[in-house]
């Protein structure tokens, strides 16, 4: 088994306007992956456009690094036996039907502290 990070990208213009059905699709999908045992951790982020702050060296700027058409809206860490299995999970992410996409990256290493994000 290996771990992969799935970076979930959404078009900047769509970041804040997912409708309730679309949001529900994400919840359903996350539950399915969790139940399959593949999910290690999953996070949704506040909109990049209004909340991201970038730090590089000494400089602090408003907004995400690149003024790109797409931004990271969330990410999760999954466990999969090989790339094909990871790609299958990435492909089943509802964002693919919502104008966005998923970047699949093998995890080189890392750790998690024992606490969870609260909102």
């Amino acid at each position, binding site marked *: 088994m290996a771990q992969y990070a799935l970076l979930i990208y959404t078009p900047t213009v769509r970041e804040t306007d997912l409708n309730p059905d679309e949001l529900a699709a994400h919840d359903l999908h996350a539950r399915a992956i969790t139940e399959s045992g593949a999910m290690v951790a999953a996070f949704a982020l506040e909109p990049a456009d209004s909340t991201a702050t970038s730090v590089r060296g000494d400089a602090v700027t408003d907004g995400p690094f690149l003024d790109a058409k797409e931004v990271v809206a969330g990410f999760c860490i999954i466990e999969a036996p*090989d*790339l094909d299995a990871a790609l299958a999970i990435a492909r089943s992410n509802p964002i693919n039907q919502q104008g966005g996409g998923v970047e699949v990256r*093998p995890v080189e290493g890392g750790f998690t502290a024992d606490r969870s994000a609260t909102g």
Partner: protein
Amino acid sequence: MTDPAAVESAVADAHRRGWGIVLAATARLARDLDLAEECVQEAYAAALISWRRDGIPDNPQAWLTTTAKRRAMDAMQRERVLRSKLPLLVEPEETHGEWEDAAVNDPLELAVEDAEDVVPDERLRLIFMCCHPALAQEAQLALTLRLVCGVPTSDIARAFLVPETTMAARMTRAKKKIVTTRIPFRVPRSAELPDRLRGVLGVVHLLFTMGHTAPSGSSLMRSDLVDSSLHLARMLRELMPDEREVRGLLALLLVTDARRATRVDDQGRLLRLEDQDRSRWNPSAIAEAHGLIVDALRAGPPSRYVLQAAIASLYAEAPTFDDTDWAQIVSLYDALLVAWPSPVVALNRTVALAMVAGPATALGEVERLERGGALAEYHYLQAIKADLLQRLDRPVEALRAYEAALALVDNDAEREFLDGRIAALQRDR
């Protein structure tokens, strides 16, 4: 002592036919592409010496596979501590772990293989791994040539018109991605198979097209790419005999390549289909393609490569250019457009349409495609348009279209052909 020349030719033959099998089997054991490649190369070098001394074995492939696997095992045992820290190829099946330990710790498996001369054929796994869509297409092409066909990196670099170091770096990067991201050494499950097979066939077809009409450079054909792609298509046909598209692709390559000798004249100038010497086409390749196409058409609804092959075969089987069954070709193009909607197919259809419905109708279609914009960079559109305009006796517009084609073309032989057409047009006026 066996005759050195006989040994050399036996080794060369085993290289051409067996490289992929030997490498795939060794890669499955070693689970490390570089180590496998090295061991296979050593096995072929060892064959040159050993076969001269002991005679050529009954099953050269089995001998080479056993030798390469032994070398891999030795290396793995020597470097076990070091290697255990390196990521290995994944082969995630039920047998995982079991075969690995058995193969490494128990020489029995190899002994059995020696006795029965059985070479397990792992080439399909290797092909699907090399053509994985997570790899850039150029890397898929290069890895397939290197690992499945055994083409030296320097030759691949020459075929792709890049320096050898660039090609070597490209392949190293691709192999690293295979290992780091865990692209599996496995034939895809049936749910993924149609998609993945399409990718593999696309790679083989692209290698053929690159070889057949080199997109740039001075010679029209790079025959080593053509030979490798035919070799791959035959291999796939042998390994996946029930796949109709595999049959279709092999037929398409065979029938296209049957005209290899006549595509250019003695000076290397491009010849049009109607000007080619049909008596020099390869009748056995055309007949073999015909058989494959008939079988594939009987087996189910027509698919992309089968239809493309059927069209090419109709062109090739006509005794003369004028005897070509144009109406049948147009209707096959109509079916192809349903199976594979593509502007290039629609453009090629206009050539046959001109013969059935006249150049004016065909020109209307070409202009409609031109307005569509998808073929703006495709010099054949302008070349076909020019030819139709010329037949409609509109030389000024024809000249303009030939010049537009000339501006888009990269291949010297094709450029010279267009220059010739332009010169002829200017002469006639």
